[in-house]
């Protein structure tokens, strides 16, 4: 019994330690002109991307980008435009991940930040949007 209680206490301490570690983490610096500029640019572009997410033409990739998934839903004349939108969005996203890492003085975090974003974009995506699962297959949310 005592052994079991000790074990419980140990587990509790371990949990608290991890919880404490998480809580102790300060916020990341994201209020820089570069991040603000990228955020603005992506926000403006979102008005054009939103219907494309909804129609499934564009989906969220597992590596924190967007990709052309099925352009058949887009009128022919606008498909080149969709390509350009996807390219521009990915350029901004890459710059965003790099700038957040840089703003916090840790350029080596870039890929971790990208991975975090990849997950959060997908978590926050609206029902009906497409995203890539861990094996890279498209899934409708």
């Amino acid at each position: 019994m005592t052994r079991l209680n000790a074990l419980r206490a140990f587990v509790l301490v371990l949990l608290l330690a991890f919880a404490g570690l998480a809580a102790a983490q300060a916020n990341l610096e994201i209020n820089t002109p570069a991040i603000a500029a990228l955020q603005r640019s992506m926000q403006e572009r979102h008005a054009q991307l939103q219907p494309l997410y909804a129609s499934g033409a564009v989906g969220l990739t597992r590596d924190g980008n967007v990709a052309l998934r099925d352009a058949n839903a887009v009128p022919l004349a606008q498909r080149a435009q969709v390509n350009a939108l996807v390219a521009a969005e990915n350029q901004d996203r890459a710059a965003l991940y790099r700038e957040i890492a840089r703003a916090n003085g840790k350029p080596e975090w870039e890929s971790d930040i990208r991975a975090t974003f990849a997950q959060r974009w997908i978590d926050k995506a609206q029902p009906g949007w497409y995203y890539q699962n861990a094996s890279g297959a498209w899934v409708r949310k």
Partner: protein
Amino acid sequence: MVRRIAIAAATFAAAATACTAWLAHAKEISLEVDDIVAPAFSARSVRASLSGPGMRELALRIERLTVGGRDWRKVSLTCADLQTSGSRVSCTRGVLDVGEKIPLSFSYASDRGDLTAELKPAADETWQVSGRLAGARTALAARLVNAKLERFNTLLPPSAPKLTAGRASGTIDLQGSAVKARVQLDGIAFADASGLHAAEKIGGTIEVDAASEGKGWRWSTRLAWRAGELFWQPLFLAAKGQRLALEGTTGDGRSDIRSGSLELPEIGTVDLKASWDHERGVLGETEVRSARLRLGALYEQMLKPLLAQTALSDLRAEGDAAVALTASGDGLKSVNVELRAVSLEDREQRRFALFGANGRIPWRQGEATTGELTLEGAEFLKLPIGAVLIPLRLRGTGLAIGAMRVPILDGALALKDFAAGTTTEGWRWRLSGQVEPISMEKLTHAMGLPTMHGAVSGVIPDVRYGRQTLSMDGALAIKVFDGTVTAHDVQLIEPFGRAPRLHAELDMKGLDLELLTRTFDFGTITGRIDAHVAGLELVDWQPVRLDMRIESSPGTYPRRISQRAVQNISALGGAGAAAAIQRSFLRFFEQFGYARIGLSCRLRNGVCEMDGVEKAPQGYVIVKGGGIPSISVIGYNRSVSWRELVERLKRITQENVKPIVK
């Protein structure tokens, strides 16, 4: 073609005799064949039977039919009224089952080779063949009426876009060894899974004439594109009545386009010659030329969709280009471009424009060439640019310009030793030169800035661009406000990105404060200042880090400061100080004397740590008084948000547009 059929028939006969068994019953004759194998054709488990009264019911079943690598399972041909009289076999109520049951009728006279066959999959759709099979004198005429093109999907490789709609009508005639086809296409649509190769409502005509000649064929074809749209990543094209005519030969493992012409309405005509080696899969000698391409229509029809979301997405283009290029299996061999009266203009945003570009750009594989471009004028960020002569030197992917003078307002940018090239890491270029004096009045006026006095001039040291970074060795000097501004260690990272990042060190010497304050409507300060900015870092053109120090220049000169300037400096520290002056007797003086002015800012994380010329009780001195009447300005707040500071400065320079001094 005729020869092929003969070979297949011979093989069929051999295979059939080898493994057949005649089974004769009272009411049925049946023939069973295990496999029939021929080049590009095989049939497995073939069973044919004749049954019924008078043996008039034919049934031919093939378990698996393979033609050209495609498979059909359970293909059957049945005929309820097979008639045989002498050498003639005919059937009027046949059915071909290839997954879809298609009514069929045919008749064949084996003595003369006369054949007619008709497939009628739908009331409005007919596939018909009639003529004579007679060796070299074979003459067949095929007629298509609304033939559904989706039927050809099974013949296409799996990776090819799938046809989803489309009809073909027309005739294909085979006379001995000559083929003539006249086919009209309507409503063709196709798409691949990703939608990157797709077309809708395509309509047009195809004409082909071919005749065997020696060991090969001589052919000519004419295509006309009448209706519909095509997206073939990354190109989007709409039908404008484009026409392609080709004439050539095929045989001996190669095809030659002896002459070809592509007519692009509104754009121009492109002539071409080419050859293709089938065995090695390589392009032979190829020549493409156009005497006159109209760039306006070329941009609108073909380039605009490609350039969406770039700086070139909304251009007005004018002028002509003549283009000639030659290529072979190892790539481009030569390119000649000649521009005539070309103008480009950023339509909405007016960021840039080029007017009256003329010249020639020659390029040869493995050879150095020289060309020349002239510009009648240009505009860049609202700055008018005069006539420019650009002497080009080209070699491989490299481009060099020895010297060029770009007139800007009343001065010029004289550039020399420009050299550019591509590497695995993208574009790299370098240049150096100098700025011939440009009046600041004109420059600031053209750029919509407050009028400044003085002139920009200076030496542009070695500027290099590579790995998305622009860097400058040496110092760039600008003469402005009667003093000098030098920039060194300048580095601009990702200048064309969303958030360019600039690093620089700045030194300003002896700037005339009177000119400076007048320009920015800050009141009047007489005197001179020096400024030093170390570790300047701008991101998206906003300062994120700097160590700045401004102080009165050493030397003897009049030092006066107006009441308004004092108020404005005080206002930088907050609203209270300015009001305090207004309430005190100091408001009666227009001007004060001062001994020194100094302010420093150490910007980190959006906060400016400020200091002045010397310490004061609980603060620091920004303006140290001197003379009569004298005034000192003391700052108390050492940490000021940069954003707040900029806002205050903006308010001061904007609100004080109307001068108080009468």
